[in-house]
């Protein structure tokens, strides 16, 4: 499916005239089984697109919440192969919801780009967000991914001007991920107006769907951004709920999954009610 599944989802959202909710969790956080259970519950709770983090030892663009999620997953021996396996299990029950892998390049580079693209497509992955691959390095992964039919979702940021946007969109596909702040995930709260202005400006250049993320933490925040964005990404706030429902030994308590999913329901409600 790849890029196509993402395009279909955005077409459906457009037809329903509301924005989509993109949820982020880290694969293997707090452990493989719990992480998979959460993953399986996300579509029903209201996630329109699932962003799944590939744990990495050195997550340079992430704030403390997602850094710690990576560490928890790695401590439980999570690997890229197991992340692919997790998506394969998810796909047994869901062929509609797009799954985007988010992470850093080195684990993919070590796995081998061609082998990875083949295995990712086969597992049912539709797109990739690789934080440390700007358009200058498109030949590494973006171009081969595009040729293989996987969407390479590129990031635009408050430092992106129109000229650079053209370069970003050249090999970017699926949707554009607009990073609402200059900064790392889950920290500063973004202001609405500059984000809206940036999207308005970008829409004069391209009609690719535009998602916004970084620092969006509550259903109310999500609703405000959902008024004008095509999708809203929430990550650290969900990951924080996982963290807050762990014992000292990082074992999930019995409430964890339910609390994560009911928060996702609230987020989805916020996002979907925004344009009424």
């Amino acid at each position, binding site marked *: 499916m790849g890029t196509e599944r993402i395009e279909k989802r955005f077409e459906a959202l457009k037809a329903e005239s509301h924005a989509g909710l993109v949820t982020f969790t880290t694969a293997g956080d707090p452990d493989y089984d719990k992480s998979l259970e959460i993953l399986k519950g996300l579509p029903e709770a209201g996630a329109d697109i699932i962003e799944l983090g590939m*744990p*990495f*030892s*050195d*997550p*340079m*663009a992430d*704030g*403390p919440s997602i*850094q710690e999620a990576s*560490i928890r997953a*790695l401590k439980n021996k999570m*690997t*890229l*192969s197991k992340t692919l396996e997790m998506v394969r299990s998810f796909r047994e029950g869901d062929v509609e919801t797009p799954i985007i892998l988010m992470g*850093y*390049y*080195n*684990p*993919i*580079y*070590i*796995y081998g780009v061609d082998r990875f693209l083949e295995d990712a497509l086969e597992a049912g992955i539709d797109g990739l967000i690789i*934080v*440390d*691959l*700007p*358009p*200058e*390095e498109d030949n590494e992964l973006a171009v081969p991914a595009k040729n293989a039919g996987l969407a390479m979702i*590129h*990031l*635009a*940021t*408050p*430092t*992106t*001007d129109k000229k*650079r946007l053209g370069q*970003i969109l050249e090999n970017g596909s699926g949707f554009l991920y607009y*990073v609402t702040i*200059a*900064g*790392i995930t889950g*920290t*500063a709260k973004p202001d609405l107006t500059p984000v809206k202005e940036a999207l308005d400006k970008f829409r004069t250049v391209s009609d690719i769907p535009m998602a916004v993320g970084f620092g969006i933490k509550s259903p109310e925040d999500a609703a405000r951004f959902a008024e004008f964005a095509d999708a809203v990404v929430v990550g650290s706030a969900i990951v924080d709920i996982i963290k807050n429902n762990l014992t000292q030994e990082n074992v999930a308590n019995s409430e964890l999954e339910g609390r994560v999913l009911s928060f996702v329901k609230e987020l989805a409600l916020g996002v979907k009610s925004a344009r009424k």
Partner: protein
Amino acid sequence: MANTQVNSYRTGPDEEGHFGIFGGRYVAETLMPLILEVEKTYNECKNDPTFKQEFHELLKEFVGRPNPLYFAKRMTEHLGGAKIYFKREELNHTGAHKINNCIGQILLARRMGKSRIIAETGAGQHGVATATVCALFGMPCVVYMGAKDIERQKPNVFRMKLLGAEVVPVTSGSESLKDSMNEALRDWVTNVEDTFYIIGTAAGPHPYPELVRDFQCVIGDEAREQILGKEGRLPDSLVACVGGGSNAIGLFHPFLDDDVDIYAVEAAGLGVDTDKHAASLSGGAPGVLHGNRTYLLMDEDGQINEAHSISAGLDYPGIGPEHSHLHDIGRVNYVPIDDTEALEAFQLCTRLEGIIPALESAHAIAYVMKLAPTLPEDHIMVMGLSGRGDKDIFTVATALGEDI
């Protein structure tokens, strides 16, 4: 094309910042416009006589260059082989080669109109050098340092504070140099408008490996002139230690196209066959981290391993991309020296020459001790003595079982 001279080892990087397959610009999109601006400004500076003049004036008046190329007479006699010269970077202001690069980068930052400086540091030498140039120019300075390193390098932490820098302890990951670099990158992404990141070694996204090398080439340029003055010919071999590799590339680069054997010494910690070392070339593989493709210590899933060395300055699981390239094409020989050998060399140099070397530099000395006795008396060897060892006396005392 930037530089197309054939049959030269000195033409890299290409326009995309590659040395062979190594280097590149693997950074978050938020940083890309700034990285491109650093490159543009640096290219202007390279050809600007005013910039060069200001750089060299500060190296002369503030750093105290040129430093001597010193004939290590007693070491030479003791080892009974090659004639050994030390390039005395430890005599620079702040006690190591790090200051050369900091002077260059702060001039670049000022030209770009940046008003705030950040840096990462391991042993604290680069942090002290950065704090020093920030004091010199009256700029605010934030230094990221692993909580573990803060504990083992207290004198340097206090030095930085005296110089007016804010030292931020890094408690994420392994709490050492690689995590400090992550944290500095996070700061930079957040403060991209007003901040310049002074990277301490010849690594990171293009153009850093190039510009750090160029600023450090003053080491090799001086050594070349000095050896011609003293011996009337070029040396037969060069030796320097490598962590990220800025002092080594600075010494080597001006000699790459000459008939000179070059040895770079990696920190083998408890041994390259153990999991406690910092020898990325002897024990690692190509990967992507901190903005560049280079040799890294990592597991089979591409997760970065912690490095280990008795010397905090070599305690990094990567190496500058130009070194990875020079390794792959075989122009430079990369050799391991372990903690024990470095400790022995530290003591020998101190007693024979009256010079307390940094533990980093002691790795180079240890290799000289191996190599020199196998060579004839007319073999001329130049070793980079990259820093002084005052900062290391506590570590050495502990290793020798002494209570001070």
